[in-house]
């Protein structure tokens, strides 16, 4: 049997593809693109929330938030190293990010303006990410799937933490209620855009679904999320900022108004409110840490030489 056919057979039988298996170049490259974007999103995603660690309003909140942002660093690490199994180094991926050549989730190019945004990111944004990541547990590439299993386990705490913050604010004093509604108004539409462009205009979806890298289309995932999150919002007394929102009794699904895809494409192009700052912050951390990385490397080198001399 030809390699291509064997590969296709594995995909059809829902067998995982492992690093040393033969795979079409295009499959490899699409995975590298998708996984590195995912890893970059975790790393850049640390920044909007990290912005509030020093201002968290109680010790419990401070520790919860710090642990959550730390998890994101961990998740970035897991995904980077699992992407390395495809033959690209973490250094190459990070270079691509810092040079502005790589994409990451648009959502992190929006600013966190109040404490309620921290709740909103946990409940809404992580909730959306969970829908996507739960699907990716079943992805055809073994290392990606394994990273997702671990990440989904850990992310449950993020969503619960966010939900708790949002619910506390929604039940709080009028200023807190105003704060949390304002946050929902700002985060609602960008969160819906996280699932990517509509199926009719999604260049990669078809191919990725054929390979079972993705198991559901952007619109299907978006709908799953909407149906889950709207009742939660209503339960907390929050208003979804969409005048066209209706519940379709026949289908049992919520139907939303038009998403502003112009905004989506503008943010992708780098014109979002925080694109520039996010990358600048990453670059600065990378540059000011260079001497540390070099020192550790030089030390390791010296130690090795000494050992060789001794033996």
């Amino acid at each position, binding site marked *: 049997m030809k390699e291509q056919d064997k590969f296709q057979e594995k995909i059809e039988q829902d067998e995982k593809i492992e690093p040393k298996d033969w795979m079409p170049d295009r499959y490899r490259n699409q995975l590298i693109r998708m996984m590195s974007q995912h890893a970059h999103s975790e790393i850049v995603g640390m920044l909007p929330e990290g912005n509030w660690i*020093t201002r968290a*309003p109680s*010790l419990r909140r401070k520790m919860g938030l710090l642990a959550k942002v730390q998890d994101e660093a*961990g998740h970035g690490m897991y995904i980077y190293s699992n992407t390395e199994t495809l033959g690209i180094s973490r250094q190459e991926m990070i270079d691509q990010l810092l040079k502005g050549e790589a994409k990451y989730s648009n959502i992190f190019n929006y600013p966190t303006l109040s404490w309620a945004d921290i709740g909103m990111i946990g409940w809404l944004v992580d909730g959306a990410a969970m829908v996507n990541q739960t699907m990716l547990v079943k992805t055809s590439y073994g290392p990606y799937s394994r990273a997702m299993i671990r990440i989904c386990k850990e992310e449950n705490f993020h969503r619960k933490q966010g939900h708790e913050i949002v619910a506390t604010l929604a039940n709080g004093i009028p200023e807190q209620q105003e704060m949390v509604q304002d946050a929902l108004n700002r985060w609602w539409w960008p969160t819906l855009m996280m699932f990517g462009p509509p199926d009719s205009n999604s260049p990669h979806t078809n191919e990725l679904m054929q390979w079972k890298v993705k198991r559901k289309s952007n619109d299907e995932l978006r709908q799953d999320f909407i149906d889950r999150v709207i009742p939660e919002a209503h339960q907390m007394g929050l208003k979804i900022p969409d005048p066209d929102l209706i519940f379709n009794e026949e289908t049992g699904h919520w139907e939303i108004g038009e998403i502003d895809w112009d905004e989506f494409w503008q943010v992708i192009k780098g014109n979002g409110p925080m694109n520039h700052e996010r990358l600048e912050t990453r670059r600065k*951390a990378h540059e000011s840490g260079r001497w*540390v990385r070099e*020192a550790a490397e030089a030390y390791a080198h010296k130690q090795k030489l000494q050992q060789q001399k001794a033996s």
Partner: protein
Amino acid sequence: MKTKDALFEFLLRLADDRLVLGHRTSEWCGHGPILEEDIALANLALDHIGQANNLLEYAAEVENEGRDADDLAYFRNTREFRNIKMVELPIGDFGFTIVRELLFSAFNLHYLDRLKQTSDKQLAGLASKAYSETQYHLRHSKQWTLRLGDGTDESHRRIQSSLNELWPYTGELFDEDEIEEHLVFELNIPNKEPVRSGWNQTINEVLEEAGLERPADDQYMQSGGRTGFHTEHLGSMLAEMQQLPRAYPDAEW
């Protein structure tokens, strides 16, 4: 002096050192030199803030005036904070953060080990838990001190200068006053003198292995933190940290 008052004051000292250092360390989150170190620094910060939280809870219990740990953290003013000045200095570069952790954790390794013997059972329990965390903090900061001290010329120069900068703040680690003397007598908390010789030994070993020069001990040593006479840095740090609860004092978070 009432033992209860002395104990409250003493718990604030222990707690504030950790709260302020934990807060400073948390500023690294997302800005570390490499991903792995981002995670390590967050663990350090979490340990410090966790210890502070436990100590403040106990302090609130001892005080028994209806305040809780968050009230103590968020509603005391700069002059009421009891931490040593070393921990409130801005984070500086990575080497500065590492040397500060080294100096602080080496002290705590010897101090907490003895504080475990206090006759106050609750404090002994907190000391014992903090002690195991401190062992790891020392390991982490020691290993990094070796790498930076004996890494490149640049790293050696940087970390030596951080060490020199921090040294005048080490004296305060060993300051003793009547409050602590009272508790040494009443609750068997440790004397600082034997802690100092343990600290000297640990620090000398690390500095020697790292090829770093120990700054002079006969220089003028900073103090004042224990009585709330801080550097200017603490005020702006607290302004940021306490902003939300103070803006909405009636709110629950």
